[in-house]
């Protein structure tokens, strides 16, 4: 089978700026061209845009604004995991032989419509994600004695990791007490337990094995796992397990022939603090119920191997860009270019990205 590598990337800073979606997409594309040697517009076979924005025909618009005339161009939308879904689409185009080089650009604005899933009537009037996250949190507390302080540790850790991410929404750090003193959103979640929507864009360039040789330090996609269990959050029977994540992780490890213990650096989808704890358990880094103590150990030892760029909580969460920003972080880590965030001798990395109360998950494995 054709191998596929990440061979370039670009980022904007995540912020609350009122920039147009076209401007965000173009900025991340310019950043990619600025940083990637030996790339010309004519090399690109496909342009995929990952976004929840309602603007139509964005991939054609981005192509026109950046002087690209691709064979294939379209938008990919899958709420918060649009980014990794677009990367899997790009991978498939390359493996099938339809494309050799694919540009994937993700962007969303702070007011993006992807935060609410109106279709899911089972959410009732409690349609903001903070409500399902509160229910998940309460269930995890009940089942595994997870505490508010455990949750706060995840936030403090990820904000601390975001100190060295130049594209993070904020580089401000918070102590566990700061998190616990932040405003209660519900009885189970503080403001600093939540990621925040913001404006931002990220881009990656994927290439086939033959073409990847002309770029510096290609990073190979070794495993892909995806699962959609439903669209309605109420199908998740066990509120303390993200079933789609569990299935996607197994698929990715099987495909890559890699064990969870082989992974050196990981990006987890911490939309809320409880999501990082559950993802640690459901991917298999620890057994069920041990996610909170594992996260606390990382905080106590200042180990940044989980969410080194600060995760969604530390970096901000522009929905369509998030999965792509996660892939960029793992790529930089495996290229030994992550500067102050660098995990020593990292050669295998994992990305976990999910949507809508974990009704859909993607797990990707990368190797240098």
């Amino acid at each position, binding site marked *: 089978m054709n191998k596929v590598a990440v061979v370039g990337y670009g980022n904007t800073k995540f912020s609350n700026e009122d920039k147009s979606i076209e401007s965000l997409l173009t900025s991340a594309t310019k950043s990619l061209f600025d940083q990637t040697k030996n790339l010309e517009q004519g090399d690109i076979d496909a342009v995929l845009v990952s976004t929840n924005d309602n603007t139509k025909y964005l991939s054609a618009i981005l192509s026109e604004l950046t002087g690209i005339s691709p064979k294939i161009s379209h938008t990919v939308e899958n709420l918060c995991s649009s980014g990794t879904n677009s990367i899997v689409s790009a991978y498939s185009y390359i493996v099938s032989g339809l494309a050799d080089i694919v540009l994937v650009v993700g962007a969303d604005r702070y007011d993006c419509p992807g935060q609410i899933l*109106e*279709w*899911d*009537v*089972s*959410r*009732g*009037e*409690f*349609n903001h994600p903070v*409500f*399902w996250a*509160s*229910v998940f*949190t*309460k*269930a995890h507390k*009940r089942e595994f004695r997870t505490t508010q302080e455990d949750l706060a540790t995840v936030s403090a850790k990820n904000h601390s990791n975001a100190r060295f991410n130049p594209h993070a929404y904020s580089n401000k750090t918070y102590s566990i007490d700061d998190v616990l003193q932040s405003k209660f*959103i*519900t*009885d*189970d979640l503080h403001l600093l337990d939540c990621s925040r929507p913001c404006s931002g864009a990220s881009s990656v360039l994927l290439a086939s094995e033959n073409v990847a040789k002309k770029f510096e330090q290609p990073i190979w996609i070794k495993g892909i796992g995806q699962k959609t269990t439903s*669209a*309605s959050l*109420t*199908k998740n029977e066990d*509120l303390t397990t993200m079933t789609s994540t569990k299935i996607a992780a197994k698929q990715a490890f099987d495909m890559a022939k890699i064990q969870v213990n082989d992974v050196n650096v990981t990006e987890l989808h911490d939309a809320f603090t409880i999501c990082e704890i559950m993802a640690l358990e459901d991917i298999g880094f620890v057994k069920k119920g041990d996610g909170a103590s594992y996260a606390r150990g990382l905080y106590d030892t200042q180990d940044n191997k989980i969410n080194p760029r600060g995760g969604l909580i530390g970096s901000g969460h522009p929905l369509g860009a998030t999965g792509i920003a996660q892939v960029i972080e793992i790529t930089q880590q495996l290229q030994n270019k992550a500067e102050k965030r660098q995990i020593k001798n990292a050669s295998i990395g994992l990305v976990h990205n999910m949507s809508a109360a974990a009704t859909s998950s993607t797990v990707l494995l990368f190797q240098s």
Partner: protein
Amino acid sequence: MTMFENELKKGNFVISECNSCKTIIWPPSDYCNNCFSQATWRKIDPAGKLIEFSKKEETVFGMIELEGKIRVIGKLKINPLDIREGQCVRLHSCNYDKGPQFTFVPCNGAY
């Protein structure tokens, strides 16, 4: 508006059930997601079980399971000191105002 939303606005919580294989389709749809037969609409059994709950300021909300299959997040008119996971609750009222609204009360006793 859909049939579901129209009925909610009238205060009726209706669900769709398959004519052929009797699957309950949730969230509701015109067609069965098991066998693709036409679905019919009927009122839901209002008695349910509280799966989990939390609170935002003075509003108690929770996930409620109805008919052993349907789960919704609704408002709970229950004293927070008396609430417990697994308790029996019943649908008190429903409405549609920009989105669905479900309110539940304890099966026994006043609220």
